[in-house]
């Protein structure tokens, strides 16, 4: 215990800094993923041809092992001299987030009660009004569930990104491995686990906050 305290005394600022890096990487990736995934998911509900292909591609992407995806991306990004570092990690996380976000948006909007949709159309709502006032609010819990899945997934994958120089909490673990230092490994992995749990809790809170009472259950 005493050794743990000494370890934390020395390393706390660094752990915090790396946690912040990790959180920033994941947050940026999720924001971009949302900007792509939600509109795409909504559009897919109007185009079944595209929906099939996109969901299939997204699902295959998710089966690609993260270290292998990095392995493929390094040579590709080397073409623009960005083979190592933030950019490939960021792009990988955006790609991995697509399936949960697109799929959940797509199914949530699809499952909005057709009678509700009819009523909205019958009242003379424009497509944009219908989406913003009826469909998205009703689909929100499911979309948010997809976002939460994506965030927890990305926090885990972000660890591997340390191997391609993207920083984050993976640095603690990789250093721990190369130095044979269990304190580093354990503190790194606990920080990752905590980050995932806290992020999930925050998103759940946001989800509850923005879900109208009428559909809370």
């Amino acid at each position, binding site marked *: 215990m005493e050794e743990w305290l000494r370890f934390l005394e020395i390393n706390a600022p660094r752990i915090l800094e790396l946690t912040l890096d990790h959180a920033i990487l994941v947050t940026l990736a999720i924001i971009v993923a949302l900007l792509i995934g939600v509109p795409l998911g909504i559009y897919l509900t*109007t*185009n*079944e*041809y*595209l*929906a*099939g*292909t*996109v969901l299939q*591609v997204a699902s*295959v992407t998710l*089966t*690609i*092992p*993260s*270290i*292998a*995806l*990095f*392995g*493929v991306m*390094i*040579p*590709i990004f*080397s073409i623009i001299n960005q*083979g190592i570092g933030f950019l490939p990690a960021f792009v990988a996380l955006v790609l991995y987030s697509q399936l949960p976000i697109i799929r959940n948006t797509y199914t949530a909007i699809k499952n909005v009660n057709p009678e509700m949709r009819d009523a909205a159309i019958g009242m003379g709502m424009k497509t944009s009004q219908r989406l913003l006032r009826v469909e998205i609010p009703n689909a929100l819990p499911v979309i948010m569930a997809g976002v939460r899945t994506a965030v*927890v997934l990305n*926090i*885990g994958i972000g*660890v*591997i990104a340390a*191997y*391609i120089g993207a920083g984050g909490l*993976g640095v603690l*673990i*990789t250093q*721990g*491995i190369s130095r*044979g230092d*269990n304190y580093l*490994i*354990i503190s*790194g*992995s606990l920080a*990752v*686990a905590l980050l*995932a*749990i806290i992020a999930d809790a925050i998103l759940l809170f946001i989800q509850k906050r923005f879900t109208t009472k009428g559909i809370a259950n």
Partner: protein
Amino acid sequence: MNTKKLIGNSFRFFIYGMVLLFFIWAIKNQYFSYIFSETGTFFVLLRQHLELVLVSSIFAILIAVPAGILITRPKFRKAEWLVTNIVNFGQTIPSLAVLALMISVLGIGFQTAVFALFIYSILPIFRNTVAGLDTIDKNLIDAAKGMGMKPHQILFRIELPNAAYSILAGIRTAVVLNIGTAALAYVVGGGGLGVWIFTGIQLFDNGFLISGAIPVTLMAILADYLLRKLEYVLVPKGSRRVAKA
């Protein structure tokens, strides 16, 4: 209607094109060359990789499915929330950390990697087994009991067939994940195709990177495909629709 079809098809061909382009580019730059110049090593690594995945997955299935069945029996129900929470927490611990922590327990080598992969694969299988058994309509169990089925008959004839979709999906998730995690076995000296990926990262050698990463990727995609086919064969026809809903 036709523009939609056009958009759909264009996207499909765009993806095909990108994949094709990638392979042409990689072949032109001789990034696959190690597979041919060091065929012997490649097959050793491939075999190690498969062994890591198979051994750890089989043991994980043998432990996780019965454990999931056990925890959903009335006797152990009370412990369910505790176990579920532990499992949920366990799932947030990075796979790399599980591998690394095993070093201090088991040292470096193949067994360490297998054991870590085994531990990591238990979680999704266990979770899906429990979820599959929990979501079975209680009325079905009631009807089965009322007809005089014994507990083991209810388990094997009603519960497991109807939970099969969920259990098999858990196994698929675990195996696909496992193939990726096995690529990290390099860090604990467990071998596998990860050896070339990590060598490639360390030496900035695109050849090693691609020769390691593409086979691992194909292996994961293939495993996913084959296990989906297996699900289709194994899940009783009548439960399929229910499972999808």
